[in-house]
């Protein structure tokens, strides 16, 4: 990290602040945690890594009292504890910042922070004392927030600070941060890291759950890697490297870079002209956006989540009505067409939310893979569906994309995130549509699946298709895109060629700072 290097790391482990021994948790026949041992020293920043389904979330839920282990013991500073609920855990100095924040949006910052532990005067809340306590706490931990601000008006990065303050207000000695950087700009991430270092230096202990390797390398002292519910590796960060961590997570070596040739862009296949989506009584969610994606190129759409990307994509594919502007697919105006007609015109779409939009979890893989192909031959003729053809096609796609599933008639709800995403990707790519919109295509999928999906996107580009990649993961945008558009508050702030883009410039743009005249 460029802005901080003064803190000594990897001090010799003292008596463990937190230790868990032999933790076992079963869900039916599934062994989510299989005799996990974890030991974290006071003042340590400790990464817990693993692919989806490795058991990280289960372990954290147990440590935070949300779940009870079937076997094993949890010790805090050498004393055994039995948390029956998160309240028990909070009482013993545990704090957790969840991926999805748990805040009251219509209340102020201080109200959120003191909620449940309000300073009182008689039966009333002592508002002045509460405000003062919050302001002092924020100043002491260099977490800049306005105690009177209403949460719904705050950016995601600031909301996260409120969550951290909530835990600190209850004097959390051990903080669990679950994928805290997923929603942050690089600058916000750096300031979070500064806060984490400060907290660790104060003697607080941080459990950092993540799958981002460079962050682990940047901030942690030690790493525990889980795979299939077991601890497979314990490493000291200073003595390891990303490649070793990935090998521990996946059990094999995985390519961390994307190989792609030169781009040979052709005709414009996907175009938006002055696309506008109004917000009820506010500034537009999408404000006169113009974008062009040509065949044979990947255009990255970067931005912090919530700056209009989802709305823009929904408008492109026909799931949301426009308030102005046009959408063209392959040069044909599809502005007034519905989803089916736009798909027919040549759009394939990997949606951000594979479970609630991209698939029907209770339906079989065959049914899921048939969607969009179910009205026309070879799957259907004269309104009748050919079940044998549906099954045949599903088997072929499952084999081609390496989906791990018992059979094509098994429901997809039982699949891991990566495998479910492969089902969605398989279906959308098999359209061979001229334009592909891939929205957060690798969110929450494991390293192996990321490698695979990235390879598929590059193959689409090589096949002359137009790919619009929407991602809040900058490393993904940088690795794959030929051009990068940065969205901020409904507008495209810049159109940067890949060779001129780096994390820092994009990060500034993502935070809304216009490009300086160069």
């Amino acid at each position, binding site marked *: 990290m460029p802005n901080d290097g003064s803190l000594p790391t990897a001090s010799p482990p003292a008596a463990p602040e937190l230790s868990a021994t032999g933790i076992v948790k079963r869900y*039916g*026949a599934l062994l989510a945690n299989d005799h996990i041992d974890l030991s974290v020293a006071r003042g340590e920043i400790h990464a817990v890594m693993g692919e989806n389904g490795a058991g990280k979330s289960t372990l954290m839920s147990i440590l935070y009292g949300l779940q009870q282990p079937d076997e094993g013991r949890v010790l805090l500073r050498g004393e055994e504890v039995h948390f029956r609920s998160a309240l028990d855990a909070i009482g013993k100095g545990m704090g957790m910042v969840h991926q999805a924040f748990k805040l009251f949006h219509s209340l102020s910052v201080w109200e959120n922070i003191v909620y449940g532990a309000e300073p009182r005067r008689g039966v009333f809340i002592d508002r002045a004392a509460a405000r003062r306590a919050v302001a002092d706490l924020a100043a002491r931990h260099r977490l800049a927030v306005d105690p009177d601000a209403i949460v719904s008006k705050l950016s995601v990065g600031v909301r996260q600070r409120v969550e951290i303050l909530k835990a600190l207000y209850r004097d959390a000695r051990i903080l669990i941060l679950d994928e805290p950087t997923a929603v942050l700009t690089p600058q916000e991430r750096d300031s979070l890291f500064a806060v984490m270092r400060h907290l660790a230096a104060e003697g607080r202990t941080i459990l950092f759950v993540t799958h981002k390797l460079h962050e682990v390398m940047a901030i942690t002292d030690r790493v525990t890697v889980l795979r299939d519910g077991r601890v497979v590796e314990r490493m000291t960060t200073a003595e390891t490297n990303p490649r070793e961590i990935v090998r521990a997570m996946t059990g094999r070596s995985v390519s961390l870079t994307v190989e792609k040739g030169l781009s040979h862009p052709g005709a414009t296949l996907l175009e938006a002209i002055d696309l506008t989506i109004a917000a009820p009584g506010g500034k537009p969610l999408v404000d006169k956006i113009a974008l062009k994606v040509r065949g044979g190129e990947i255009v990255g759409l970067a931005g912090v989540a919530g700056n209009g990307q989802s709305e823009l994509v929904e408008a492109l594919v026909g799931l949301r009505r426009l308030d102005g502007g046009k959408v063209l697919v392959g040069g044909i105006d599809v502005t007034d067409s519905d989803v089916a007609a736009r798909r027919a015109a040549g759009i394939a779409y990997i949606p951000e939310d594979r479970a609630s*939009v991209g698939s*029907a979890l209770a339906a*079989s893989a065959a*049914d899921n893979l048939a*969607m969009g192909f179910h009205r026309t031959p070879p799957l259907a003729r004269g309104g009748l*569906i050919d079940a044998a053809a549906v099954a045949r096609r599903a088997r072929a796609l499952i084999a081609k994309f390496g989906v791990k599933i018992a059979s094509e*008639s098994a*429901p997809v709800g039982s699949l891991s995130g990566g495998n479910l995403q492969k089902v969605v990707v398989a279906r959308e790519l098999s359209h061979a549509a001229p334009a592909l919109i891939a929205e957060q295509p690798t969110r929450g999928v494991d390293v192996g699946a990321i490698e695979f999906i990235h390879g598929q996107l590059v193959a689409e580009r090589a096949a002359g298709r137009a790919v619009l990649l929407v991602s809040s993961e900058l490393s993904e945008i940088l690795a794959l895109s030929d051009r990068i558009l940065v969205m901020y508050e409904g507008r495209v702030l810049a159109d940067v060629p890949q060779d001129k883009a780096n994390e820092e410039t994009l990060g500034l743009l993502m935070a809304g700072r216009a490009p300086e005249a160069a």
Partner: protein
Amino acid sequence: MSAAPQPDARALSRWRPPSAAIAILFAALVGGALVLASGVNPAEAYAQIFMGAFALDNWPNTLNWATPLVGMTLVAAIPLRGGMINLGGDGQLIIGALVAAIVAIYLPGPGPLVAIAALIAAAVAAGLYAALAAWGETRHGVPMLISSLLLSYPAVGVASYIVRFPLRDTTTGLPQTALVPEGARLMALNGVLNVGLILIAAIAALVLFVDRRTVVGYELHMRGINLRFAGYGGVRLDRQAMRIMFVSGAIAGLVGAIIVLGSQFRFIDDVLLTPSYTWSGLMAALLANGEPAGAILAGLFFAALQTGGFAMQRETSVPRVLTMVLQSIVILFLAVRHGAGKSRE
């Protein structure tokens, strides 16, 4: 399309008996306790229900009861398969019955053609009325759950007014229309049974076929599992909702027409709704979560239960309302199981 999932090792190890069977078992136990409390041997009461439904002589009665009940089961099950709920079965049934009566009484022409015209008119009128609820939801955001139910009351009220005043058969003192001419009545088959039974059986078979083999059935099933997925995949959701509700209402209209043309031969106020076919049908559909084959079976089961209830009431001192209690308890236990299952996830 919707083949049962292959039993893999994990599913087998967590095998639980089908929830419907358990709910029925629980209901039988609770019902048995109630019978016992009233001083009757539960085994005796259940035996009477069984005999009353399935003794050879009683088959026509059971089937006659099953005709409208299974019809109304389909009315509820078809939208439910797509995650929609049609609570307006009563109104749609009444509209169908009234329209059938009016057409059959006042349309001149050869009897069988008049009957066919009456059936079609009943189906179209009730179908359009049901589609109105879907239109309210897709265009104006009125939840169909509410609008379908609320639209039912004016239909029932207006029909009641019509047979009490403008169209009342003044030769009788009752709120009812004149008799349907004999030529326009549905052909009798055997005792109480008429062609309506065959019509409903044919519709049930058609619904099963559409559900399992066709694009329409696939799209409806996918909508039921995940509405957003269906929309994302290009299913035209608004149009689909209107069409499905039209079909659902049309079947309700046919049921009304079959009762008027096949067994009562006139529209008699209040009589159509007394047996609560709509609500039994809704329960049967819920029991199977909208899956047509299961819903039809459940509808037949409830019809047998209710027919058997008459025999039980005759032979023991237990009132036949017990069968409605059993039916409700089945649904209640089912709901408990579903709820409990969810909170455990």
